[in-house]
């Protein structure tokens, strides 16, 4: 969004350090009320947006009266055509950016330097595509209650089976500020990692906060997101309920009857920095929580480096192990030792595979074309 400076006519943007609107040329500071007039502000119960359609990618771009757009926010093409005017609900709350662009870049470059099995060139990569986007979120306050029947195993064997005990729990819990991404363009599994946002720092929406940043409108309505949010809450609640059973293990939920009440749900804009870079023609889009500075995403991982390092460390670890096994062969029969070590090795391979799968899942979201389209070339 761009606002014009009343003194010099240049663009004024929201300054994170000064927490006010600042002109980039004459360095004048302005109160938002002096820029956003009463008349304009009163229209903002709902905001009138001009809807533009990109003739290249078909994405709809919403631009309000005080905003100037010269290119498509999704594919970067300048070929956008006016489509229609639409009224959309104004966000009720906003968390202003607290982390500056430079800080976000520093946080990411620190993570890149720390990463393993990454090319040296990537560790010092130039981040030229950095943009701050206010991402739309639904924020829920939910009262949740449920009656749960749990079962767990007890370490007593009866008729060759572990004893099963049952537990009853009836409780309630209030969930506050459950945030859920309201943008279809951003993958939910990826944006879920941005939380927690400190909602105590949330303020009433003021359009001046948007100046100098990009902002998207929600395209996933409240009803659609409600189902996912309730599942999220249920999962969190049930995992905690399981922890309340201390006297058994392998605790599982046999049956639960839940009820909930959505106390409030509001639409808020939350700050996120999107940082993109390319390596071997693969685009990586990482995110930084614009309030807390939490870095989200997976850094490039070179398989050949990993294999090389695994081979070398394998040789280094094996040498002392050979001597150790040679020493303990007197205490175990060869067969028992063979079985023990084989099982242990299979377990280790399984654990290693699990870690790598998790990393690849994260890499998938970081390199997802959808995320790239959301952030790049704005």
């Amino acid at each position: 969004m761009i606002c014009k400076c009343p003194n010099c006519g240049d663009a004024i943007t929201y300054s994170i350090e000064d927490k006010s609107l600042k002109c980039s040329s004459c360095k004048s500071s302005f109160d938002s009320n002096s820029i956003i007039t009463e008349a304009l502000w009163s229209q903002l119960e709902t905001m009138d947006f001009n809807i533009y359609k990109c003739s290249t990618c078909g994405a709809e771009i919403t631009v309000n009266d005080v905003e100037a757009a010269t290119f498509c926010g999704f594919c970067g093409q300048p070929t956008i055509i006016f489509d229609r005017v639409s009224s959309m609900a104004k966000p009720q709350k906003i968390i202003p950016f607290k982390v500056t662009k430079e800080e976000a870049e520093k946080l990411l470059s620190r993570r890149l330097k720390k990463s393993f099995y990454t090319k040296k060139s990537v560790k010092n990569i130039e981040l030229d595509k950095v943009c701050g986007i206010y991402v739309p979120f639904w924020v829920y306050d939910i009262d949740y209650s449920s009656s749960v029947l749990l079962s767990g195993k007890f370490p007593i064997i009866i008729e060759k089976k572990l004893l099963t005990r049952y537990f009853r729990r009836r409780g309630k819990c209030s969930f506050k500020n459950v945030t859920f991404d309201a943008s279809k363009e951003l993958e939910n599994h990826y944006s879920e990692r941005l939380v927690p946002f400190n909602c105590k720092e949330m303020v009433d929406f003021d359009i001046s906060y948007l100046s100098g940043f990009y902002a998207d409108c929600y395209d996933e309505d409240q009803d659609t997101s409600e189902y996912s949010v309730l599942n999220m809450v249920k999962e969190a609640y049930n995992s905690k309920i399981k922890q309340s059973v201390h006297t058994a293990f392998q605790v599982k939920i046999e049956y639960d009857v839940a009820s909930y009440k959505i106390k409030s749900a509001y639409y808020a804009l939350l700050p996120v920095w999107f940082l993109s870079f390319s390596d071997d023609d693969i685009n990586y889009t990482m995110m930084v929580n614009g309030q807390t500075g939490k870095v989200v995403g997976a850094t490039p991982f070179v398989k050949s480096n990993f294999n090389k390092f695994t081979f070398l460390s394998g040789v280094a670890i094996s040498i002392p192990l050979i001597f150790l096994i040679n020493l303990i062969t007197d205490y175990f029969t060869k067969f028992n030792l063979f079985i023990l070590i084989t099982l242990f090795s299979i377990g280790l391979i399984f654990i290693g595979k699990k870690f790598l799968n998790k990393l690849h899942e994260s890499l998938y979201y970081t390199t997802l074309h959808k995320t790239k389209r959301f952030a790049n070339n704005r």
Partner: protein
Amino acid sequence: MVFSIVLGLGLGFPLAYALNSFFAYKYNDCGKHKGNFKHFAEKRIKYTSKKSELGIIFEESRDLGEDSNPWDGYRFH
């Protein structure tokens, strides 16, 4: 000795693989923790009820034992 070498290599390489995978996951995957119960509910303990445990206020918490028919006499609310 041949037996020790075979077992040493058999254990050493999987151990190296698991360790390297762990470090790759730890240092290459940033912000892996999603929002969980703690972020949304745990702080409630402070201002709700002293009976509250883990952020949940338990209205009923009973061990039913090894009852083979746990549904007997049980009514969900």
